[in-house]
């Protein structure tokens, strides 16, 4: 033993650390730059959304679903609407289904922009993040045309959607997805995705094997990055996703190991392209006429029963476990989110990495704090 004693340093990362994406807190035990352990501490954004659900009407809960994951609120709206519709047996008009898909996929694109953009920001690349947000601005304009809001969209209704397509939306939306698929992705990849420094930072960092991913119930892009081609839009299709032709991108371990941070980063860019394909097909087949919402009774009640419906959110599986006792408000709603399971794995894969790698791991898992705490 040397005569100097060394001890591990306990670092408090968050809840107001720049790269904890909202208000997360990690208690780091570090030995200099090397990390021994990162213990997550959650709950800073708990708003009691599940309890609120028991106090508001069935439709009244819809705006609260926006706040589950405010980066992809249409997807959360959709998950709740699908669950209630299945339990109550409400039919959805054809046109409304297409509008839902368009809005949800646009929302997925916007969410992935935030996802990989924030990861790049955490790695010190400010410009690509701003370029991603520039494209997201077009999405904000589009969704504002559609439903009047730029952040908490509240677009989906039980039995349909809130508004029909405004004039000019289809053309603008088509130009947007064409720009993304044919111009932006290529430019963005040249700027940053194939940059040697970025590859060095992400490849072989935070490797999650397929078994580990399953053990920790990872879902969504994080699971697919580990090589598991599982996408609820295809495997357990809801809404009208079975009518569209799209691929499920999976991780390939292009520059390192299968399931490393680079795979989790790049799969999101590939998913943006797939979402563009879905939107284009949906715009092509969108019926010109027809209802956008099923007429529901003024006092809408759901017959007693329970159901679990899971949908594919940008951050993984969004599950709604809904129990109804036949009254005008839900008896109990339990929400299962993708970020929560992504959060649990951080402690496992961050052992023995550097502090800078922890930032990359959190960013690559695309953890969003409101989804964890709800």
């Amino acid at each position, binding site marked *: 033993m040397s005569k100097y004693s060394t001890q591990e340093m306990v670092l408090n990362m968050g809840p107001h650390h720049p790269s904890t994406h909202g208000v997360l807190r990690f208690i780091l035990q570090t030995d200099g*730059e090397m990390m021994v352990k990162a213990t997550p501490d959650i709950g800073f954004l708990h708003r009691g959304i599940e309890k609120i659900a028991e106090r508001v009407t069935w439709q009244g809960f819809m705006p609260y679903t926006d706040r589950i994951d405010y980066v992809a609120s249409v997807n959360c709206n959709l998950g709740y609407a699908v669950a209630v519709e299945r339990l109550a047996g409400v039919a959805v008009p054809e046109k409304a289904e297409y509008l839902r898909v368009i809005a949800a996929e646009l929302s997925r694109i916007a969410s992935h922009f935030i996802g990989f953009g924030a990861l790049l*920001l*955490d790695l*010190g690349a*400010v*410009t690509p993040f701003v370029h991603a947000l520039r494209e997201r601005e077009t999405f904000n304009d589009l969704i504002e045309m559609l439903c009047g809001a730029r952040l908490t969209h509240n677009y989906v209704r039980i039995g349909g959607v809130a508004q029909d397509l405004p004039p000019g939306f289809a053309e603008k939306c088509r130009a947007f997805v064409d720009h993304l698929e044919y111009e932006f992705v290529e430019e963005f990849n040249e700027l*940053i995705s194939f940059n040697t420094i970025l590859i060095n*930072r992400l490849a072989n960092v935070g490797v999650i094997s397929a078994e580990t991913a399953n053990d920790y119930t990872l879902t969504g892009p994080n699971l697919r990055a580990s090589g598991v081609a599982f996408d609820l839009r295809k495997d357990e299709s809801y809404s009208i996703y079975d009518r569209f032709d799209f691929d499920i991108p999976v991780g390939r371990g292009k520059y390192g190991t299968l399931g490393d941070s680079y795979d989790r980063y790049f799969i999101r860019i590939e998913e943006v392209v797939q979402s563009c394909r879905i939107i284009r097909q949906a715009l092509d087949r969108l019926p010109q006429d027809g209802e956008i919402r099923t007429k529901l009774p003024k006092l809408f009640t759901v017959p007693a029963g329970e159901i679990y419906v899971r949908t594919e959110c940008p951050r993984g599986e969004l599950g709604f476990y809904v129990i109804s006792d036949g009254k005008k408000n839900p008896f109990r709603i339990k929400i299962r989110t993708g970020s929560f399971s992504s959060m649990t794995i951080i402690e496992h894969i961050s052992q023995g990495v550097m502090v*800078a790698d922890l*930032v990359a791991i959190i960013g690559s898992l695309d953890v969003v704090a409101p989804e964890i705490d709800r």
Partner: protein
Amino acid sequence: MYSAADQIYKNIEPALSGYGVPDMVITLLAYAVPCGAVIGIVSMIAGMLTYLERKISADIQNRVGPNRVGPWGLLQFPVDGVKLLLKEDIIPDAADKKLFKLAPYLVYSSTVLASLVIPFGGSFVVADLNIGLIFIIVVSSLLVVGFLMSGWASNNKWALLGGIRSAAQIISYEIPTALSLLTVVLIAGTFSLQEIVMAQGPWPWQWFLFHNPFTVVAFIIFFISGLAEMNRTPFDFPEAESELVSGYNVEYSGMRFALFFAAEFSSIFITAALAAAVFLGGGNIGRDPYASGLGWQLVMVAVFFAKAAPLCLLTIWVRWTLPRLRIDQMMAMCWKYFVPISFACLVLTAAWMLLFDGNGIFWRMAKL
């Protein structure tokens, strides 16, 4: 060689010694004027660079940038300076107050000291030391002391990590910087920056950059190591805002923070100026600076800044394009690649000098 201080001394010495002013006071006076001028100029340039950085990054990122204060927002940086001066000066209770106060001055003084030997073209150099290059390398190492001091004195773990990182980084990158500068010393045979500039010519094939293939490599290594020494992306570890919140300066506010900031931007200019003087011929327009009139000397200054400015812009451009390396990758890059390559450059340049009798690759053309 003569410097601005020498010339002032010559002019004021006869007048003042008549009044019985001691020689030491006259010497101090002679040096105080150009020192003050250079500190002012470098601070001004640092301020302009903050404006340029914001404007260029805005252009790169499809933003507008500062445009409210003055024409095109040009007065933004003095306004920022005034704002920082008026801010509350916060010293944490748990900080080591003396060291905490001392650290920013150490950091700032190291960059200011380095600017004293920079030849701005013509006879505009405060002190043409015969160990100029060594002096610059030594005083820029003072930065480490300041960073480490601020990191330790803040009594903040993030700041401490930032301070340790900067110590590791700056000390490591001193070596390739010094070795790549030494290749030029081999050719010029002097450490004096003014003489190095005068040993080159006005045309690109007379610059030391194109003296032989190894000086080109040395220049590239010098520039990249320079980025590391001034803590710029992709080597901005000491203040990596997304990892260490803000690193060594996280507890600083007001004018103390501004001093760190000014030091960072001054060192951008000083590194660019050093590269321009040592590798790109500085303000050399093929005339003897001491025999030329003021008009020619100002042309030399313009030439010097025309060479230094693109390097400053390149530094800013790099920052807004690249992500950050990881600290172990940065160290591996230095010790595994830069140190051996710069050492090889030094040895190979020595061999070149021996083989070709000290002539550069374009020596025939230079004789035309």
